[in-house]
């Protein structure tokens, strides 16, 4: 897992308290509305996201930039690499 700090996102999704598979569905919808090269921040407290989000990025052709751990949740950063998700 790649840990990063102080990444500035273009958009942010707060999915804290939401359950699987919202940590994959909502980023998919959000990225559709974003431009290529923009960065999406996904906040979630779902532990399964540690494996799921990097895998999902590979499958969808986006770049998983890395993650940051906050007190109560994780922050994942995804760079949109292609126009269709």
């Amino acid at each position: 897992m790649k840990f990063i700090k102080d990444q500035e996102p273009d958009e942010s999704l707060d999915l804290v308290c939401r359950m699987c598979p919202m940590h994959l569905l909502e980023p998919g919808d959000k990225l559709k509305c974003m431009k290529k090269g923009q960065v999406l921040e996904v906040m979630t407290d779902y532990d399964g996201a540690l494996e799921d989000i990097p895998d999902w990025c590979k499958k969808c052709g986006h770049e998983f930039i890395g993650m940051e751990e906050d007190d109560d949740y994780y922050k994942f950063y995804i760079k949109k690499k292609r126009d269709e998700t």
Partner: protein
Amino acid sequence: MKGAYLDHASATPVRKKVLEAMLPYFSEQFANPSNVYDLGSKVKAVLEEARIHVANLISADPAEIVFTSSGAEANNLAIKGVAFARQKKGKHVIVSSIEHHSVLNSARFLERLDFEASFLPVDKNGLIDPERLAKAIRPETILVSVMHANTEIGTIEPISELASICREKDVAFHTDAVASVGNTHVDVNALNVDLLSLSGASLGAPKGIGALYFNKKVRLMPLIHGGIQENGRRAGTENVPGIIGFGKAATLAKKELPEKINHVRKLRDRLVDGIIKNVEKVTYTGHPEKRLPGHASFCFEAIEGEALIFMLVQNGIYTNTGSACASKALKTSPVLGAIGLRADLAQGSTVFTIDAGNTEKEIDHVLEKLPAVVERLRALSPIWGKEIPEYEEDVCH
């Protein structure tokens, strides 16, 4: 026999246009909205249209509406959902002492889980004092819930003022607007609230459908876990006909509201003036001006509310004691206790809730029959004629 149904706070008839809108979604367009094939996606599209209509009624963003099974579930989701989501920040919630049981008992449930709940007192008209709320908020307070309008006494609370106090202190603010949506203007932006509960049954949609408005910035722990319905905030296959009906009822309510308010206010004033003029020893409960336009509530001295209701039914008149739960449990209504009414006077509670379909003739029928019914019951009462003290000036609990 002449009659008058004046208990619209308990139930409204499903409107014809609402029923017509719902019917195709029982057996024709029955597909599950989560299905990926066209039958499902068509239903999903109509469901999302209904969400827009419900959101429009309260000037909200459709993405901030989660459908529930009732107003009570919406209240539970607001109170417990916010408390669970914010418990690391603090474990103190504040609710008013005149809330619906779905708010009061949610707060009491949280007490069992080591949260602390404060029950905010009201004045003799049922109003919350904003200064009192400000003083009750502590660093560990995470949520305040004060209802928009009270079903039992009709009082409308100063919600925007109360919500602003909470916003300044980073405390989430919820209002139960089940009694007010469809009966008076409700705008979540003007009210400045984070969460607001509403119910379809209050505005001519069927029972079994409600909604919670939530500000996107407020985290909400789901209470029903499962699938991805309602964006993962409330699992379970959607009540599609109910949601469609709610959407249609919301559209009609928004269009007709100004006219309805004028109509029911006139009838309400006629009823109130007539009762006060023709019946002695009666207390008009709730705030005299800051109240729902179609709402009139009274306590008749030396009378049991249930007895009055049954006698009125014999004349085709349907009203309510105001608190079905308290009435069935033979307890004094917590709302009437909170405004400082003596228990014996509170026993004579009778609530009239008027809707757009009611007429002047119906009100006159009530005014013709009620005085005689009251007189007959008082003739049987062992306490009639004994002195009853007035309201307490300041009510502290």
